[in-house]
């Protein structure tokens, strides 16, 4: 399949979607059914923030295979997707658990042994690809990545000369994922999504994708949404499923609701540092496969950690 779809195809793919104002609240399991093996999956949020972890957790439980991952900056969620055998390909600008935990042993194991591909674009490169996808244009020009060695290792990239100024520009192709997974603070049953704090690349990602699965801390009424339409950042007709999952980013953060669960993330980092394969496998068994549902997973993270993360999360609104 070519990197960039023809405009005829792009329009046809949107035309065939049900864009009516309809309720689309489903369970995590049902939402996972919208993701097919081999799909290109855009992950919302960045690093430890607003990571759609509940949906990722469910995709691992559902045994999805060969997903291609796209994320602005990848962290432990992508380590888990590689280690669980769900994905062998990730397109991102930076991939490690986080600066404070050093270079990811899982990322190193899978990439250095060629068990997975880490396709590296600059942060703006990833952003401009989602934006081109969101705009319905086949590419966008930009002024970075030129001169570096990043472009040597990428096929879908083209140096060009500006027809107006004769300046060199880099053309990056539109990225239209098969499905986007995005976590928000609140949305209604139709998928009108309000997100607080940093939006990262999520709005472009939602507009670019062929399907959007929203997980949300809270499903609110459409009346509530209509009180502050200026706060709605993702329009309902781009959304295909809504799943209400409190603490749906745990142990990552959700702006204004909870900060990262630092103790758990430190503990996780120790497990995978000791052995990136076995450590990750044990973690996945214990925290992803064993719990009977998301709430039991949260119980395993522990009340003390949840309360502490929530207290720190709400503190952003206190001066």
């Amino acid at each position, binding site marked *: 399949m070519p990197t960039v779809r023809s405009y005829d195809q792009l329009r046809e793919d949107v035309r065939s979607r049900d864009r009516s104002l309809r309720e689309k609240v489903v369970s995590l399991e049902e939402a996972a059914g919208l993701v097919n093996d081999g799909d290109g999956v855009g992950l919302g*949020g*960045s*690093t*430890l*923030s607003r990571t759609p972890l509940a949906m990722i957790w469910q995709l691992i439980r559902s045994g999805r295979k060969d997903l291609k991952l796209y994320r*602005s*900056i990848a962290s432990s969620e992508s380590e888990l997707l590689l280690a669980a055998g769900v994905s062998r390909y990730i397109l*991102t*600008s*930076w*991939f*490690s658990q*986080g*600066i*404070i935990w050093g*270079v990811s042993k899982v*990322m*190193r194991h899978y*990439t*250095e042994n060629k068990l997975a591909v*880490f396709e*590296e674009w*600059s*942060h*703006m*490169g990833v*952003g*401009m690809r*989602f*934006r081109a996808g969101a705009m319905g244009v086949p590419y966008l020009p930009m*002024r*970075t*990545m*030129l*001169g*570096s*060695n*990043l472009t040597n*290792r990428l096929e879908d990239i083209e*140096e060009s000369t500006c027809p107006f100024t004769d*300046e*060199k*520009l*880099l053309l990056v192709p539109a990225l239209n994922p098969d499905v986007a997974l995005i976590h928000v603070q609140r949305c209604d049953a139709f998928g009108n999504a309000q997100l607080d*704090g*940093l*939006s*990262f*690349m*999520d*709005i*472009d990602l939602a507009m670019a994708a062929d399907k959007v699965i929203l997980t949300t801390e809270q499903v609110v009424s459409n009346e509530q949404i209509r009180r502050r339409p200026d706060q709605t950042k993702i329009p309902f007709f781009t959304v295909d499923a809504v799943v209400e999952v409190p603490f749906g980013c745990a142990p990552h*953060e959700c*702006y204004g609701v909870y*900060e*990262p669960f*630092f103790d758990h993330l430190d503990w996780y980092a120790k497990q995978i540092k000791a052995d990136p394969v076995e450590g990750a496998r044990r973690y996945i068994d214990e925290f992803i496969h064993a719990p009977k549902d998301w709430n039991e997973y949260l119980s395993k993270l522990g009340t003390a950690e949840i309360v502490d993360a929530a207290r720190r*999360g709400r503190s*952003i609104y206190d*001066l």
Partner: protein
Amino acid sequence: MTSERNYTATELLSVVAGRLLKDGQVVFAGVGVPLFAATLAQRTHAPSLTILFEGGTIGAFVEPGKLPPSTNEQRCTHRANMLLSATDVLLLLQRGYVDIGFMGGAQIDMYGNLNSSYIGDPDEPRTRLPGTGGGNDISSLANMIVATRHEKRRFVEKVDFITSPGFLDGGDTRRGSGLLAGGMYRVVTDLGIMGFDSHSKRMKILSLHPGVTAEEVQDNTGFELLVDDNVQVTDPPQESELNVLRELDPDRMYTA
């Protein structure tokens, strides 16, 4: 001399880098030394300096003891003026609103090219590193300050991979590649401050930290450094500067 120091290498880097920033500048900072340097400048000689984070924050004021783990968490937004999407904050660099970018890297060469992607042959790397993040974008579009430990394994003749462009092969090659703005400004290490020759674009010693000789810097560098005709001696960190850093990071998460 070394034994009398009452500061860590990270504190020294942060203080020296912070002094290079000027009041009124718009600075793109990462966590660790860049954030300490920019915040220190803000609280001393540069109160109207603005910090941007790659996650989308304009005008952050970091709260003491609540340092963000990366530039993408809510802690980055404390008392900020504005939050943008990550793509839009990077586009501010392209539009030209940012004076200084700040970063590190696993390797740097004599032209200031940085590698944060692969150690060894990129096809068969000894170590796959986390990658560019916004580093390539920032170094393609802004004047750069690099803050790093001065070690021979970091200061190499030729980087294994150019993740973030410095002056490429020197001379006019950066401009020739299509990078019309920005470039390396200073490299700050635990030994001294380096700049770049205006014609050849080779790295040059501008200032030596107290007790450090030019030979010592050269011995810790994998390529031949130029030496400025008028090399300075860096003023040691002042108590007042160190106090600001220690207030920001009371648990010494980053400054130890």
